[in-house]
C-alpha cells in the first residue's frame, strides 16, 4: 500500500499543474500582504468607524494575526479550485492518458488504488494548507508583528487576545483541511465518472460556486436548504475565532463534512470497482 501511495505522490509531483496551487497561494498572499502593509490600518479604521464615534479604541493596530486571518478568509474561497486541480485529475487523468488499463493490470485491488490516490491527494492538500499557514500566518507574524486579533463579522466584532490565537489558528487550519478534504472527495468521485480531467475540475468548482451563492443570499427558501449544503459547513473554521467557542456547532459541521467524505469516497469505491475500462 505504501508503494502505491508513494507512486501516486510521484505522479502528483511530476505534473506541472500540481505547483500552480503553491505558486498561486504565494502570489496572492504576497500581494495581500503588500496591500495591507500600505493601507491596512486605514482599511481597519474604515471598518470600525461606527465604533470609533462612541469609544476611544486603544491598541487597535494592524498586526500579523489580523493579516493572517484576512488572508485565510479571502483564500478559503479559492483553495477548493487549487485542490480540485489535482484531485479531479487523479482517476480521470489515467483514463484520458490511457494508463488506467496498465494500472489495473497490477496485482492490487481497485479499492487499494482508489485509497492510494485519495491518500496522495490528501497529502497534497495538507501540504497546500501548511504552505498557506506558513505564508499567511507565520510570515505575517514576522513582518507585521503579533497582537490582538480583530475578527470582523458583518454585524459584530470579536477581539481575540494575542495569547489566545495560536490554538485557534492551528484548529482553524485543521478544520480547513477537513473542509478541503470534502472537495477532494467530491472531485475524486467526479473524476471516477469522467473521461477527461477538465470536467471534474469544472463541475467541482461549479457546485461550490452554486452552493456558495445560495449561502450568500438571505432568502427564506435558501435558508431552508443552507444547512444541507457542505459549503455552509466549510467555513466552520471561522467559528474557532468566536467567543464563547461554539463547540456543538463546530462538532456538528465537522461531522457533516466527515459524512460527506465517507459518502463521496464510498460512491467512488463502488463505482470504480464496477467501472468498465475495456471500452
Amino acid at each position, binding site marked *: 500500500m505504501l508503494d502505491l501511495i508513494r507512486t501516486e505522490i510521484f505522479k502528483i509531483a511530476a505534473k506541472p499543474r500540481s505547483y500552480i496551487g503553491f505558486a498561486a497561494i504565494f502570489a496572492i498572499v504576497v500581494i495581500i500582504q503588500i496591500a495591507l502593509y500600505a493601507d491596512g490600518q486605514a482599511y481597519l479604521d474604515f*471598518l*470600525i468607524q*461606527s*465604533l470609533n*464615534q*462612541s*469609544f*476611544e*479604541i*486603544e*491598541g*487597535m493596530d494592524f498586526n500579523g494575526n489580523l493579516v493572517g486571518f*484576512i488572508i485565510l*478568509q*479571502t483564500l478559503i474561497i479559492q483553495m477548493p479550485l487549487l485542490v480540485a486541480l489535482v484531485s479531479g485529475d487523479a482517476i480521470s487523468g489515467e483514463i484520458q492518458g490511457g494508463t488506467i488499463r496498465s494500472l489495473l493490470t497490477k496485482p492490487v485491488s481497485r479499492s487499494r488504488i482508489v485509497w492510494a490516490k485519495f491518500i496522495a491527494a490528501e497529502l497534497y492538500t495538507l501540504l497546500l494548507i501548511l504552505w498557506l499557514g506558513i505564508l499567511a500566518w507565520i510570515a505575517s507574524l514576522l513582518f507585521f508583528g503579533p*497582537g*490582538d486579533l*480583530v475578527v*470582523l*463579522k*458583518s*454585524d*459584530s*466584532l*470579536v*477581539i481575540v*487576545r*494575542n495569547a489566545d490565537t495560536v490554538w485557534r489558528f492551528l484548529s482553524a487550519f485543521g478544520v480547513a483541511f477537513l473542509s478541503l478534504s470534502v472537495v477532494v472527495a467530491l472531485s475524486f468521485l467526479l473524476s471516477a465518472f469522467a473521461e477527461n480531467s477538465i470536467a471534474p475540475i469544472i463541475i467541482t468548482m461549479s457546485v461550490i460556486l452554486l452552493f*456558495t451563492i445560495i*449561502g*450568500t443570499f*438571505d432568502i427564506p427558501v435558501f*435558508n431552508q436548504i*443552507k444547512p444541507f449544503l457542505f*459549503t*455552509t459547513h466549510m*467555513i466552520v473554521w*471561522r467559528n474557532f475565532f*468566536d*467567543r464563547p467557542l461554539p463547540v456543538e456547532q463546530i462538532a456538528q459541521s465537522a461531522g457533516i463534512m466527515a459524512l460527506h467524505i465517507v459518502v463521496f469516497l464510498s460512491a467512488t469505491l463502488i463505482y470504480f470497482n464496477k467501472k468498465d475500462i475495456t471500452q
Partner: protein
Amino acid sequence: MKKALFFLFFLPFAHLQAQTPNQILYKSWQQFSRIKSFKSEVNIYFNLPSVSIEDMSGKAFYKAPSKFRIRLKGIAFLPKDNPFNVYTLIRDSTQYASVLNGSEKIGNELCKIVSVIPNGESDIVMAKLWMGTTTNCPLKMQITSRENGVILIENTYGRFVKNALPDKMRFTVDMNKFKVPKALAADINNTPKKSAGDGKSKGTIEFVFANYTLNTVIEDSVFKEEGK
C-alpha cells in the same frame, strides 16, 4: 420644650437646605483638589452589544488639572471623555452657571441634582450631577459634550471618598449599530440578527480601581500616545 427638640434635631441639616448649587460643587472640588496626581490598578469590564471582548486590567494615571490615561496591553474600548473632566469645569465658579434640579436617593444616599452649564467655550455642553449630601461626591454624572454626545457615569466610593476618588466607575455609552458589508467582512454565510429600533444601543464599561497611590510623581510621557 417641643420647639427646642425640633431645632436640636433639624439644626445639623439646616446647612444642606441653605447650600447653593455652587457651594455643593465647590465642596466636591475642594475634596478632589487635594489630589495632584494618582496612579492605580484598574480592572475593566466590558458589556458592549455587538462587540465581544474579554475583561482586562491595566494601570490608571491622573495628573492635575486634567490629564488622565489608562495604560494596558492589547485592544480596549474606553470612554472618550476623561471621567475627571467635570472637576476641571467646576473648579472655577465664574466659568459656569449651576441650577439645582431637586434631589434623588441613590442607594442609601440622598443626592442633590445640580445642572452645570459652562459659560464660555467648552467641549462640555451640560453636566448633570447627582451630588451626595453626606459624601459631597458626584454619585452619578450625565455629561453632554459636543464631541462625544451623552455619557452617563455612575460612581461608587469606598476608602478614598474623602478625596472624591471612586472605587468603581460605570460608564453607559450610546453606541451606533456595528455593520460591515458582508463582502468586506467575508462573512458570507452569516445571517445578521434582525433588531428593532433606530440602530442605537447602549454599552457599558466598568472601571474598578484598586491600590491607589496618591500625589506621586508621574512623568508627562505617561499621558502621551505611543508613536506620537
